[in-house]
């Protein structure tokens, strides 16, 4: 198959990078890239050329990533009411417990942005699995809340609590690691 080598050369790294920014397990990421190429090959007749090959491949991969989170969410307990992570960040009156060090969002410098995104990716990978799933599907995949609830099998109220906690923990990790 003459296209196989070219496909893998042209898009392999792009698909792997896309996957690894969303899934931290490198072996699972490699499997998803492989499955994406196989699905694309089997369904190549459906590619009409309305978008670029890259966009088409990423659309296939995106669905595989969502399925990956769906499968991993199956049967997992959400979180218990006693998981009061918020108490680490807020005092008894509900105000920030510690001085809030804002990070610089005004930078257009490519290198700084790259460094920051690298830190965010690492911090995201350290989140508990259910936080990571909700956060990734919202902020990386841009899925709406209702869709994420379906994928993860959680209620809307649990979803907002998950996202809230994920943002607080992630923000704290960025604060500890980003010094620009």
């Amino acid at each position: 198959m003459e296209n196989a080598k070219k496909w893998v050369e042209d898009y392999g790294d792009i698909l792997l990078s896309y996957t690894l920014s969303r899934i931290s397990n490198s072996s699972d990421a490699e499997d998803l890239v492989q499955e994406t190429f196989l699905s694309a090959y089997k369904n190549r007749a459906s590619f009409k050329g309305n978008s670029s090959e890259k966009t088409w491949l990423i659309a296939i991969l995106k669905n595989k990533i969502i399925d990956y989170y769906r499968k991993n969410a199956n049967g997992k307990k959400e979180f218990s009411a006693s998981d009061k992570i918020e108490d680490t960040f807020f005092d008894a009156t509900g105000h920030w417990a510690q001085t809030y060090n804002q990070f610089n969002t005004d930078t257009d410098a490519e290198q700084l942005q790259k460094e920051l995104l690298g830190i965010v990716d690492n911090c995201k990978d350290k989140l508990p699995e259910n936080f990571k799933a909700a956060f990734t599907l919202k902020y990386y995949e841009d899925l709406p809340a209702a869709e994420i609830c379906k994928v993860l099998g959680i209620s809307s109220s649990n979803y907002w609590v998950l996202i809230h906690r994920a943002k607080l923990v992630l923000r704290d990790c960025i604060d500890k690691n980003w010094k620009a």
Partner: protein
Amino acid sequence: MLNCKEFTLLAAKMEEEKQPLSVRFNFAFHKLLCKSCASFVREFKFLSQKLKLERNIHRLTDMQKEKIIAQLETASAS
């Protein structure tokens, strides 16, 4: 008036769902008075734009590439 804990919980909902006027007013009022919460919103707005950007930073090894190519060739032969 909202406290910071309530505000940050509401911030995620505000990114996606239109809230009643009274809620939006309380949200805006708190944001005006609280620099930390205003930063929290600004930072996640910034991240939500940047996190979707393509990052071509990982490379398949030659062995991984060969494995995928071999699988595609097998699929093509069957």
